[in-house]
């Protein structure tokens, strides 16, 4: 059987193959799901450093005097909280409060911002941005095809990046800098999606392989390892981060996704605000909730969750957590006020496995200071 769809490849394709990466189709991109072992790659990231090719992510630049006002209109978070050199995690909402995308917005300079968006939503985000940019003095540049992206994540990431770019290594958590890399304009942010300290290198595709090889070479003595999407998915779920399209989408609001800290209702008007205010007043009827198995087992997306003998929802992301040595998952449960410790059951292979409701994140890295996990 041949797959007729042509998969997009990143500039690191040959390197992934040479490193033994198992390549899979991820939203139309051919990317490594793992090299040698998801468990070992996860372990490398939690304790040393993991390198991830995240070139599928999109980059939309917002520039011009109306940039901040425009970004305030389309974001639930308060973009005025960041100045040049800072980044912030945010949700872009539709009129119903549903999530159009989750993004990291960096302020590179006054009137110059970069939104890093999800791979599958680049086109729809751009259309949404353009539609709402009318009346603002802004310019939108989708540079997703120009830039590749590498995430360098883990407690030793700072030391490794320090050997390549002292300027980047000097960034604070959620810091951002636009600088020249091999003579080309690039952006480095102290961000990531693993729940560890780390950096994201957003560099033009033609120099991506050089940066990747630099980090691999410098990282070797620190025990750094290239990591695939499999490890990334486990790391982000342990850290309580959303996977857009799976955990949250246009039909689920930020409140329902249990990300209310992203919403700043007092910042002024923004798209989705009215809907969220109504939801807040009326109360939500479902909430993305963390579940942990009390017996060995591996929950999977789609598994039914039972409380008091009736199904309360299904898991949308689930895995075996190497950090906790337990099965974990998140799902929208129709009882939004469940307390941690509440007993539940998860149906696996036709059997209801005992589980309990737990607080998110499932795992908080001892290497990260509390309160700085998302700016």
């Amino acid at each position, binding site marked *: *059987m041949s797959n007729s769809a042509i998969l997009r490849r990143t500039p690191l394709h040959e390197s992934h193959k040479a490193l033994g990466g198992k390549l899979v189709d991820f939203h139309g991109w051919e990317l490594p799901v793992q090299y040698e072992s*998801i*468990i*070992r790659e996860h372990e490398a990231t939690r304790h040393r450093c993991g390198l991830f090719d995240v070139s599928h992510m999109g980059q939309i630049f917002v520039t011009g005097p109306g940039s901040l006002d425009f970004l305030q209109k389309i974001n639930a978070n308060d973009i005025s909280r960041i100045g040049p050199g800072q980044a912030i995690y945010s949700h872009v909402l539709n009129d119903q409060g549903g999530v159009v995308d989750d993004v990291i917005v960096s302020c590179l300079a006054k009137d110059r911002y970069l939104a890093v968006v999800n791979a599958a939503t680049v086109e729809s985000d751009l259309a949404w941005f353009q539609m709402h940019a009318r009346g603002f003095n802004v310019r939108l540049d989708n540079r997703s095809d120009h830039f590749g992206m590498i995430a360098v994540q883990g407690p030793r990431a700072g030391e490794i990046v320090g050997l390549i770019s002292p300027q980047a290594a000097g960034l604070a958590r959620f810091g951002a800098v636009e600088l020249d890399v091999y003579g080309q304009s690039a952006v480095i942010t102290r961000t990531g999606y693993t729940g560890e300290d780390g950096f994201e290198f957003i560099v033009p595709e033609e120099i991506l392989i050089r940066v990747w090889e630099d980090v691999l070479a410098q990282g070797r003595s620190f025990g750094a390892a290239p990591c695939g999407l499999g490890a990334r998915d486990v790391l982000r779920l342990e850290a309580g981060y959303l996977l857009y399209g799976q955990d949250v989408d246009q039909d689920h609001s930020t409140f329902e996704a249990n990300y209310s800290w992203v919403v700043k209702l007092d910042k002024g008007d923004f798209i989705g605000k009215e809907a969220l205010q109504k939801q807040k007043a009326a109360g939500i009827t479902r909430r993305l909730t963390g579940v942990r198995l009390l017996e*060995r087992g*591996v929950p*999977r997306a789609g598994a039914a969750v039972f409380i008091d003998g009736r199904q309360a929802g299904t898991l949308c992301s689930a895995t075996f957590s*190497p950090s906790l040595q337990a099965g974990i998952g998140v799902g929208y449960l129709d009882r939004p006020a469940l307390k941690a410790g509440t007993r539940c059951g998860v149906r696996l292979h036709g059997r209801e496995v005992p589980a309990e409701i737990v607080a998110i994140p499932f795992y908080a890295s001892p290497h990260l200071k509390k309160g700085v996990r998302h700016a």
Partner: protein
Amino acid sequence: MLDPKTLKFMKSHEWLELAGDAGTVGISHHAQKEITDVVFVEPPKVGRKVKQGEACCVVESVKAAFDIYAPVSGEITAANADVVKDPALVNRESYGRGWLFKLKASAPAEAGKLMNHAAYEQFLLSEAAHGSH
């Protein structure tokens, strides 16, 4: 550690060691490598009767669950408690302490339908040539 040359194999990568009607079942080195990190094993209940080719055990990695099929018909006589406690044993010693279950074969002649090691190796090569997994 068993010598794989003494074992019989299924196309679904289970191995069977058969001495009279006493069978031991595990997964091949190739299979454990494909599955990679085994994080969960649910062996069949002792006393369960299974038919040749029947799914009776689950081996799971971080990414996926794999059904394990009975290489011959019979009654389950033992489940390996060690792999339940330490699933990575399946990766480390697929032909040894990483065995999954034992059974008393009701029709040992069924093993004649399985591949010997040389035929299994040949089968793996042809699979690789077709690029299918």
